């Protein structure tokens, strides 16, 4: 595992990741920007402080796994992998014809992608299977799954959640990116989940909620869930804002797949992010 970072450093890396996402989106002239920006702090805290990339020698089936079930946020994952020096291509390949950095992550092309996703709901079930496999082997690795709140529209997510609880998968940690938006508008207006936390607890999950843009709270929450002794899968409900960091797009439907930012807007965003670090 990479050395754990203090909160100030996590915030700095989050700023770098956010800028990298926006700049890559700008160069590619498209991409799922809003959905990528809402998971920035979750990715940074997870990958910097809680995720082990190491695989025991000769056991390729082992090691922590991350599944971006909300696969349309691949841009954020690529930029995070690039920040950690784990990407096999330069980010400028994102969006190019025939590039391995496809709009939805393709495990057959990118080594740091542990499961191809894009059809919502599917990554969660894959994560359940990975966790079950590790549990069967008595391995100590963990499986992290990033879900979107819009993804809860899919029936498969509820099948997966119930099966994980029934199987007592204590090595499975879901981060639910609750940005309260989906492609067509606010999730509460389209297909609301009255109380995700309570719903999941009722299914047998151990749940916490946190400000999904507060690195300190996320770090503490993930630590608590990972080290809990409960014989249950765990879920961190991250309250987030879609397109976080771009003020004129935050929480807006059009942030889902917006046009690239202008150079001027990019400079404003950079200035604003730098200010927020002080």
């Amino acid at each position: 595992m990479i050395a754990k970072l203090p909160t100030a450093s996590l915030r700095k890396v989050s700023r770098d990741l956010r800028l990298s996402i926006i700049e890559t989106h700008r160069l590619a002239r498209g991409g799922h920007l809003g959905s990528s920006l809402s998971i920035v702090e979750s990715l940074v805290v997870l990958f910097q402080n809680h995720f082990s990339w190491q695989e025991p020698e000769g056991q390729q089936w082992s090691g922590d796994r991350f599944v971006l079930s909300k696969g349309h946020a691949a841009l954020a994952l690529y930029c995070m992998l690039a920040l950690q020096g784990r990407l096999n291509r330069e980010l400028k390949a994102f969006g190019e014809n025939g590039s391995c950095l496809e709009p939805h992550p393709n495990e057959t092309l990118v080594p740091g992608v542990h499961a191809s996703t894009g059809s919502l709901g599917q990554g969660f079930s894959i994560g359940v299977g990975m966790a079950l496999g590790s549990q069967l082997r008595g391995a100590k690795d963990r499986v992290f799954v990033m879900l979107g709140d819009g993804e809860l529209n899919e029936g498969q997510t509820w099948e997966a959640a119930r099966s994980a609880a029934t199987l007592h998968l204590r090595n499975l940690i879901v981060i639910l990116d609750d940005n309260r938006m989906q492609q067509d508008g606010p999730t509460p207006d389209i297909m609301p989940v009255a109380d995700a936390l309570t719903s999941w607890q009722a299914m047998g999950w151990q749940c916490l909620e946190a400000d999904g843009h507060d690195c300190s709270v996320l770090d503490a929450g993930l630590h608590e869930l990972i080290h809990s002794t409960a014989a249950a899968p765990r879920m961190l409900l991250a309250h987030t804002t879609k397109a976080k960091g771009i003020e004129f797009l935050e929480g807006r439907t059009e942030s889902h797949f917006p046009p690239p930012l202008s150079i001027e807007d990019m400079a404003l965003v950079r200035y604003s992010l730098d200010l927020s670090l002080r």
Partner: protein
Amino acid sequence: MNSARTEYEVCLRDLGESHPSVVVLDAGLATSMRTNLFAEAFPERYFNLGIAEQNAAGVASGLARRGYIPLVHSFSNFLARRAHDQIALSATWPRCNVKFIGGSCGLFDGRNGPSHCATDDLAAMSALPGMTVVEPGDRNQTQQLLRKIVEEPGPAYLRLRRHGCPENLVPETAAVGGTVCIQRSRGASCTLVACGSMLQEVLKAAQILEKEHLELDLIHVSILRPLDVAPILASAADTGLVITIENHWPTGGFGDAIGRETGQLGIKHLRLNLPDQFLPAGDPEWLLNYCGLNAESIARFTASCACGVVHV
């Protein structure tokens, strides 16, 4: 437990013994899919995930990534139709070592009607790049094909009859050749090609035609994808006529697969398949007759075609 033990449940249990990486998943139809012997013998490797096929396909994908060989069981309609996206993207695209075991296929399982009786599963599964598709014709083949798909890496689909296959119809050694010549006759006027579960009726039809002194080549195909078409084309080069018989709708099934080969070569190819409609519910014998797929119908059709009679 309903009815007598099938060959499948015994095979599965034996496979669990010889292959410790095999994990069995059920999607709430365990008593129909006959996984009970495995579940009793290896409870730590058996999971009933409830009536949730999409999740089962994904869980299997995850298990395969941890080095297991999951066998996902349900009726074929609920796999090939309902969980098709999951089978395609979660399992087949990344070439996960997942085996889908589909029951209640075609007219031999038509008692419960179109919701349960799979008639387009071959089309759905065969369409997926890299998917192995097999359908046994008898008990030997069930055992050997199950073992074969488990021992060969990658996604596979085994098309089963819910109440088991007939006793062994072809020599055991011939079972998993994929495409097997059962009979080659000098001067044969027709190549009859039985797909999977149609083997028994086709063999009966051949017996009827033998009495009528009609010489035939007889071929059985149990591995539908990848398809070994060479023995069929070799026979067709002599006979000039191929008739395929399948337990599936006309679109996207075995006949289409053979037609892609024969069409390019200008070989005459006629097809017997399930009618292009949602079938009424019925017992196997009744449906065989209704669909024109019982031995008598196959023999009549073959005789008329081989003798050059225009068939409607």
